[in-house]
């Protein structure tokens, strides 16, 4: 067997040079430095993920990243950034990252409730805490991912949130991550949420761009939640330049008798890969991953998830809804692993897409890997057009076609949004979807004229 060493692409070469130049100044005590070195060595072996890798089959990052942008080193707090922050409708605590760098002055740190502790990731990396390597690593199923390796090697900052056992947070904690969009930059950030036993909390992640320049963003969030905790996560990836390329990884290790739910809204996100690596660390735990993808133009949204049921009595629910117009491409790859001892696992995975026109594409790839014999696991994937019968019914009642379509689409997306538990946040998500549909409705009226 011959060993083929592929030639490095220009972007891969640039990343190697960037890492060599930056590794001395990237924050981290010794264990973190080792983690970075190991991760980058792993990345160098694999290179940028490409379509011949099954897990990256539909999102060829090697082809997409022709050039690696210069690393963002500092936060460019521009007028546009400030304007966007003041326009943001969001109650509760705000932790602001600009270009991947935590900006305390823009954050609301003065009145944190008891039990909530916030640091910058950079501080946590140099703090010398003993569990840092474990905390950063997350579930084992994430280990081989080159996108995540790159994040580990190059993460500059983020927030490190600790929620003490028994704490019930009455307001969401929002990590607002803005790319300044002043210049084309590569942003590597990671945040960590450690929630103790019995914690109830809602974490919001906003990813937006304040300026017009397209960024390359590699973000990660790591959750480690304790037994009997209930952690809700909402991610909104919006308002990015069309040429933006992003990888957003979510790593979660969830304790026993716990509840963890994540919902992601994607619209105007350029090319986005969201990947979830989730591990059931205790029995009788329920995990839900859901999301809505609204795609147009040449946008591309990839949702790839791995649910690792290691223990019995785990429940998993996945529901992703995609509405795809223009030349947009949606990808859903969902893998549910039920290991030998994970009896009584109850899994249900759904990916439904509506294609609005001929140029739109959806790839669905649900996978079940079941090694236990007493489980209930199902999946359903559909790709369809707007139901003509429903449309006719609404039009026969007087709704013009664009409005009738918008109503059907809103209802389609709404089925997943229903699972966002916080009422205010649910309304925020619905408002974003309505705004997107409104733009579409307006443009179709123009084209009809």
């Amino acid at each position, binding site marked *: 067997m011959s060993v083929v060493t592929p030639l490095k692409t220009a972007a891969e070469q640039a990343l190697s040079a960037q890492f060599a130049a930056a590794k001395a100044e990237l924050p981290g005590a010794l264990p973190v430095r080792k983690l970075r070195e190991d991760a980058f060595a792993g990345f160098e072996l694999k290179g940028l993920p490409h379509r011949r890798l099954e897990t990256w089959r539909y999102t060829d990052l090697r082809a997409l990243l022709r050039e690696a942008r210069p690393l963002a080193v500092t936060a460019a707090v521009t007028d546009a950034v400030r304007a966007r922050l003041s326009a943001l409708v969001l109650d509760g605590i705000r932790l602001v990252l600009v270009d991947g760098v935590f900006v305390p002055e823009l954050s609301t740190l003065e009145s944190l409730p008891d039990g909530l502790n916030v640091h910058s990731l950079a501080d946590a990396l140099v703090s010398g805490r003993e569990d840092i390597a474990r905390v950063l690593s997350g579930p084992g199923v994430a280990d081989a991912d080159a996108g995540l390796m790159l994040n580990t090697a190059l993460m500059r900052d983020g927030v490190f949130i600790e929620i003490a056992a028994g704490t019930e947070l009455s307001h969401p904690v929002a990590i607002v991550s803005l790319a300044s969009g002043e210049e084309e930059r590569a942003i590597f950030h990671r945040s960590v949420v450690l929630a103790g036993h019995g914690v109830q909390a809602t974490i919001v992640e906003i990813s937006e761009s304040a300026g017009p320049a397209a960024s390359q963003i590699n973000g990660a969030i790591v959750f480690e939640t304790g037994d009997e905790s209930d952690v809700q996560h909402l991610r909104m990836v919006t308002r990015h330049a069309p040429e933006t390329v992003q990888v957003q990884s979510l790593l979660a290790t969830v304790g026993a008798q716990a509840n963890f739910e994540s919902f992601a809204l994607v619209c105007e996100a350029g090319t986005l890969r969201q990947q979830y690596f989730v591990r059931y660390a205790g029995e009788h735990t329920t995990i839900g991953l859901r999301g809505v993808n609204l795609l147009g133009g040449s946008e591309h949204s990839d949702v790839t998830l791995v649910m690792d049921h290691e223990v019995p009595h785990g429940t998993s629910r996945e529901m992703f809804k995609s509405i795809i117009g223009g030349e947009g491409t949606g990808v859903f790859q969902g893998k549910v692993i039920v290991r030998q001892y994970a009896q009584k696992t109850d899994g249900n995975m759904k990916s439904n897409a509506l294609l609005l026109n001929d140029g739109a594409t959806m790839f669905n790839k649900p996978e079940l890997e079941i090694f236990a014999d007493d489980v209930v696991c199902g999946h359903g994937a559909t790709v369809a057009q707007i139901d003509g019968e429903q449309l006719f019914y609404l039009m026969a*009642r007087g709704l013009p076609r664009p409005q009738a379509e918008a109503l059907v689409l809103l209802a389609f997306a709404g089925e997943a949004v229903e699972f966002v538990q916080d009422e205010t946040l649910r309304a925020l998500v619905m408002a974003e979807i309505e705004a997107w549909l409104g733009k579409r409705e307006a443009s179709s009226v123009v084209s009809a004229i």
Partner: protein
Amino acid sequence: MLEIRNLVVKIADEDKQILNGLNLTVNDGEVAAIMGPNGSGKSTLSYVIAGKEDYEVLDGEILLNGENVLEMEADARAAAGIFLAFQYPLEIPGVATMTFLKAAMNAQRRARGEAELLTPDFIKAVNGAADKLGIAKDMLRRPLNVGFSGGEKKRMEILQMALLAPSMCILDETDSGLDIDALRIVADGVNALRDKNRGFLVITHYQRLLDHIIPDTVHVMSQGRIVKTGGKELALELEKSGYAAYVEAA
């Protein structure tokens, strides 16, 4: 007034012709019934009048108050006054019935250049009409037609008809799937809407519905055209003798 002249229609993607030169007039204030065997084209006729796209009109015209509606999309026909009560009302998951009713009423008002309804007026109108049809408030909060029984769906159609106040109502097999009590409620709802300015086209297989909604005229349809027209007694005759004679005649 609805006038249909020499209407020839085929299914858009097939070579199958369904309506073969159909002529029909329904005057304002008139309740006209169309009876006919399965496959005679009754439902197609209702869809073509309402503007469904799955059909291709090869010849003829459909005039509502003198205006040809064939060039209009379904929503424009609705705003012009055509209402089709569906044989199988569609379920629209995720759309609350109240949201839908308001959107429909306001869309028609906008199309006619009228001001949109104020919310209190809208709620008053819906509650008043719902009470008359025995529709519970809970049903109005649910997604449109989702999980409704056959009777509830048909009542919801009549509620929409009452709220949208069309000038030409087409009832497609409204009696199908109804027990006798539900049939009476629906028929009472329709009768309450009878008006000298409003025409009705009641499509049915059976005489039964016409015991409750007494027609002025009865048309027999077979193989895509009207083959006999008479008064309400014609329905009784058909009940006895069946359609066989007309199928052969066509």
